[in-house]
């Protein structure tokens, strides 16, 4: 039986507009928006594909949503598709962010504005910490066991946030040890 034809973007323009629209909805967390737009509405990916590709996008260095866009754009239109999704994700939001930055620098000497932004940065910090907490369930199935994993997280936190060691050495040493131990525990 012939597989049903996969829906996909008809043109580079459609791809660009889709990722532009997606980026403009992404306040704070894009994950939910990506899933809703690409899986539920456009049906360019199935849910299973989305979960797997998101995992790859997450493991690769770089911003997850941009990585996912690169991978998907490449699949539809090769490197041109990848370039177009990258531009789609960045251009309009970049202009918006720069405008906000200009507005802010104009009013930054007002104590209310400075105070508002200071408090917003505390909220933003909370959001990032919440993202860390949302990843905790992923440790439950981890081959190294929950306590050991929490140990790794705590050691990297202490090294980076409290001792302020360079990220490079922490990643190499702590991340390296963790990967090697995981590799030994996984069945070949």
């Amino acid at each position, binding site marked *: 039986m012939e597989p049903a034809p996969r829906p996909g973007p008809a043109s580079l323009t459609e791809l660009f507009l889709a990722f532009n629209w997606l*980026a*403009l909805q992404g*306040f*704070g*967390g894009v994950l939910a928006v990506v899933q809703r737009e690409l899986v539920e509405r456009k049906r360019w990916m199935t849910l299973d594909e989305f979960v797997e590709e998101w995992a790859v*996008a997450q*493991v*690769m*260095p*770089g*911003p*997850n*949503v*941009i*990585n996912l866009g*690169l*991978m998907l754009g*490449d699949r539809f239109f090769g490197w041109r598709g990848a370039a177009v999704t990258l531009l789609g994700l960045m251009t*309009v*939001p*970049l202009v918006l*962010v*720069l405008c*906000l930055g200009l507005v802010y620098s104009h009013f930054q000497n007002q104590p*209310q504005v400075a*105070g*508002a932004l*200071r*408090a917003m*940065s*505390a*909220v933003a*910090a*909370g*959001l990032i*910490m*919440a993202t860390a*907490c949302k990843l905790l369930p*992923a440790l439950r199935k*981890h*081959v190294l066991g929950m306590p050991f*994993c*929490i*140990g*790794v*997280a*705590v*050691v*990297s936190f202490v090294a*980076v*946030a409290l001792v302020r060691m360079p990220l*490079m050495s922490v*990643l190499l040493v*702590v991340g390296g040890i*963790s*990967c*090697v131990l995981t*590799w030994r525990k*996984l*069945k070949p």
Partner: protein
Amino acid sequence: MNIHMAPGDWLALFGQYLLLSLLSVSGAIGTVPDMHRYLVDQHGWLSDMQFNASIAIAQAAPGPNILFVALMGWNLGLNAGGGLGAGPHAWALGMFGLLVMMGGILLPSSLVTYNAARWGQRNRHRRSVRAFKQGMTPMVIGLLLSTGWVLVRNGAAEQHPVSAWVLALVSAVLVWRTRIHLLWLLGAGAILGAFGLV
């Protein structure tokens, strides 16, 4: 804020961001502590205020969070050009700073992802691929916590130590445990801050 940037400084900055790009396993936000160490503590190219404002503005705006790097680059360039009031020369340097830092943070990671994604997808059952994915997870959690910590410590907590930490922790728990929209929290934070409570 006024700084001097020699050509060698721009090059070092670009190199540092190329390196950070490859280290950004949890997304660039996980490398924020290292950016702070480099830009603010070590070189003094950005003020704490500019550093934190860049992140807060990018979080409050739609779009990929990576745009905080664009704002940092823009601010750094403006600092090098004598500030926003110094005219077109400073704006050009701001744009240059934006391109240097965004180019640096995106180029290596995008190339690696582009080339490795197909391979990784084909080989996702390989032991080495699974070991890398799983092995990095606990570390990524530690790095995200570090980012949150550094942002509060070097930002709001300098003026209002207790309320800043409370606000950050309450937001963290709400985002973690409920489906509340982030904009409500940012808005509430803005109001509390405008009234000088945080």
